């Protein structure tokens, strides 16, 4: 029972951390962390091909019954973070795209007499 609680706490923590980090951090550091994460993930994937047992041992360590379950959990977390990153990236993209389209629209629009350009647009 205790062991099950451990994995649950771990997973919830990871999910919260991933989401919080994705929501807050931008720029070079976040990108570097993502890339390091990807390299570590790839390395671990290679290791687990050579030593399939590694998942089971890790699973027992955190209190999950089987290695496959742990892989599933890891996949859920990875997929969730992918979804959030993609959503945020698309949203940022849309914001920029909107600004661009609005600028084009306003610069081509007919003006009433004696109107100045709006610098805040």
């Amino acid at each position, binding site marked *: 029972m205790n062991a099950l609680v451990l994995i649950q706490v771990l997973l919830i923590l990871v999910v919260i951390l991933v989401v919080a980090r994705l929501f807050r951090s931008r720029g070079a550091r976040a990108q570097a962390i993502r890339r390091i994460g990807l390299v570590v993930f790839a390395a671990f994937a290679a290791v687990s091909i050579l030593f399939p047992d590694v998942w089971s041992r890790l699973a027992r360590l955190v209190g999950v019954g089987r290695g496959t379950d742990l892989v599933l959990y890891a996949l859920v977390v990875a997929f969730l973070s992918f979804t959030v990153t993609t*959503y945020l990236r698309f*949203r940022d993209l*849309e*914001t920029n*795209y*909107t600004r661009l*389209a*609005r600028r*084009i*629209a*306003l610069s*081509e*629009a*007919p*003006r*009433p007499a*004696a*109107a*100045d*350009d*709006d610098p*805040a*647009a």
Partner: protein
Amino acid sequence: MSTRGTSTDDVWLVVPLFNEESVIADVVRDARRTFPNVVVVDDGSSDRGADAAASAGAFVVRHPVNLGQGAALQTGFDYARSVPSMQWVVTFDADGQHQVSDVRDMLDKARAEDLQVVFGSRFLDDRTTPSRMKKLVLRLAVGYTNITTGTKLTDAHNGLRVLRRDVVERLDITQNRMAHASELVAQIGEMKVRYGESPVHILYTDYSKTKGQSLWNSVNILVELMFR
């Protein structure tokens, strides 16, 4: 107190337009009898509605691609802001469900009571008769908006609003799609400005019924608001 005697030159109607070719010319012509300044923001329509609006006498701003109604409103705000004589912006729907006489009453109210924002509300009198389902959706929506924005409104998702220049200058709608109405209320709530509500009559024509906000749409709005 009536605007009928006073000038309406400082009022700008902002009309987001998306594929309403059949009605937009009449809407613009009718509105311009009272309010000569109409800016129609064509949101990448595939029909010739923008040309119809222009020939009816509106200033037309054309989005090169479809961005959404919220984006169209913000473009209209930016346009109106660039007109130095503008004192009031009115957000007005392109499909003919809003009444020009309601706008006149709202402006009278804003001027008489020195309000910076007047929201139209369907629920202050019994002229508007939405279906029961629509009523429920709107009630839930306004409840959510009131809780999250700290405002007290009876109808937060009404497209008819009167905004004073100082408010328009501070608005920045970033929710391109459905959630812009809530976002607008939220931004006005944060500004701590004087706002009020005025009864309006929404004509649910067969035409406008085929669009509008369904229950499914309110789910989308909720998600868009949560992941701002």
